[in-house]
């Protein structure tokens, strides 16, 4: 029987502020490669990393995207919890 075939992609993830606390070895601004199935969304990536759901500040290649955004191989992703300043 043929095994189900998943094409895997690698995305490069940075976590900021309190989200980084779940990955204590990850430096500030440091990128973490994550291998996910092709077709994965940003929201699924957030679930996979066990980050709190409902994150609204998700940058993919320097543009804000929503959780339903489909990831591509090589995407650079930055995720922030709710933050503000000015």
């Amino acid at each position, binding site marked *: 029987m043929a095994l189900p075939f998943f094409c895997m992609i690698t995305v490069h993830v940075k976590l900021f502020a309190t989200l980084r606390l779940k990955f204590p070895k990850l430096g*500030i601004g440091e990128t973490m490669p994550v291998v996910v199935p092709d077709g994965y969304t940003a929201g699924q990536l957030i679930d996979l990393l066990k980050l709190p759901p409902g994150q609204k500040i998700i940058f993919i290649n320097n543009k804000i995207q929503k959780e339903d955004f489909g990831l591509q191989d090589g995407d650079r992703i930055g995720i*922030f919890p709710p933050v503000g300043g000015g």
Partner: protein
Amino acid sequence: MSKFLVVDMTNCAVEYRDVPEEYKNLAGRGLTSTIIHDQVPPSCHPLGPNNKVIFAPGIVTGTSSPTSSRLSVGAKSPLTGGIKESNVGSRFPYQLACMGIKAIIVEGQPKDKKYWVLKIDMKGAALEPADEFMGKGMYETAPLFYKKYGDSIGLMMIGVAGERKMSMAGVCFNDTEGRPSRYAGRGGLGAVIGSKGLKAIVLQDEGAPGVTIANKEVFESGRKKMIDALMEHAITKPKGALNSYGTAVLINIMNEAGGLPTRNFSSGIFESAATVSGEALFEGNKERLGKELYNHACSPGCIIRCSNTWHNKDGSEMISCQEYESIWAFGPNCGIDNLDATGKLIWLSNDIGLDTIEAGNAVAVAMEAGLTSFGNVEGAVSLIEEIRKGTPLGHVIGNGAEAIGRTYGVVRVPTVKGQAMPAYEPRAVKGIGVTYATSTMGADHTAGYTIAPEILSVGGSEEAINPEGKGDLSRGFQASTAFIDTSGHCLFIAFAILDIASGFEGMVEECNGVLGTNWSGDDVIELGKKIMRKERAFNEAAGFSSKHDRMPEFMKYEPLPPHNNVFDVPDKVLDSVYGNL
């Protein structure tokens, strides 16, 4: 009943006056801008005898309302040539409001070069000679005031930059722990105060009666709603983003957005952003102090508590506060990549009495001109020290980014109406560009902080790079901000009240409670628009037109990495901000 305190510097006379009926429901920015509109000749020289400086606490300032010890400082600006309101939190506004002073109006000009201290207590106000406080750094001067007048005073000072009437001179106030570190920084109002021969204002509030509240029930209802909103929202709550990381948490986020102006607005990404971020500040302090350090309140009664301290390697305090804008101005914008260096440059700016945004921009333009190189910390320090020394070069730099740019023939000068831009790239974030272009204040992020929906997903969500709809977005933010700046609340309450409707209701109720008015939510936005119209009318009479509501030209033809976008909001959209007001 609160009064105006009118200080005539020509005759060294002080007088308490009743508040005219038409000003009774105004405070903060609404009051400073209305008085300037009504009483200052728009064509006057900003440093001449006909300009006035107004200090006005907000409507709810001095009450138990949270995060509301704010002051508006207003005058015609020597930097922009237009109207200016610069807003600050410190102990001073709370004390001033409690002392029953609705505004201090400083007018006239002494004929000699003597400087004065305005001392106010519950027995009255008097001008005292300032000789012993002149020509020194702020960190040396503040303790002299505490020694003479007591540790609990509210203190306003100008530094040597203000004494020299430089257009980047800020107005310094003391924080809750007495540091001379909180600034009404923008627009060179320190120079206007210097031109009046006023070095400082000292408040001694013993016996102050407090603020009269017309309807306590309405006020309490509003106050509770405001507290609940601030305590609930992830950005403003204790140990939330602002309390943990300070405003500098934005360094990484703006860098990810490709909108962190770098090396004098030549890129939107700084490769070393992480090293000067709010997270780096938090972890650096933790390493140097051996414990986590959360931020403190810059002013009495603040729930948000976003003001940070940065510590030396031996654990001693180096500086408060390394704000986002200040770190950015001397860090990424100058190609400087460490917090000890930005801390040193901010300390110097505070000591001399400078607006850190204008100072960092001026240094970056000087770097572009080749006076020193990007990333050269000692070069930046020596440029700032020129200002302290009062050399001819120091005077050029001290007059701001546009002055140094014009002097050295630099084309890439990021200013609108003469005022340098803050830490958000308008080619990457179009709404904030509309605010920079159209604000009555010159390039000012606080005038209409569209970053909230464009980057932070607060108060909705807008695509940052997209120019569509940004005229309406900016207008709405500018109008609501004009009211918040009038209410006496810190602008950071907006994060909570944009997302939590009852918080907005609370703000309106608090104001109704204090004043005995019956304003609706629509009424306060209309009041914000009315304030904008008065400011605009003053600027038009001073010589501004819609042709001044424009981005610097280089932003229209120089694509900015990483998005490689130019500022492409059409002029007719910029004109619609006031056209459709």
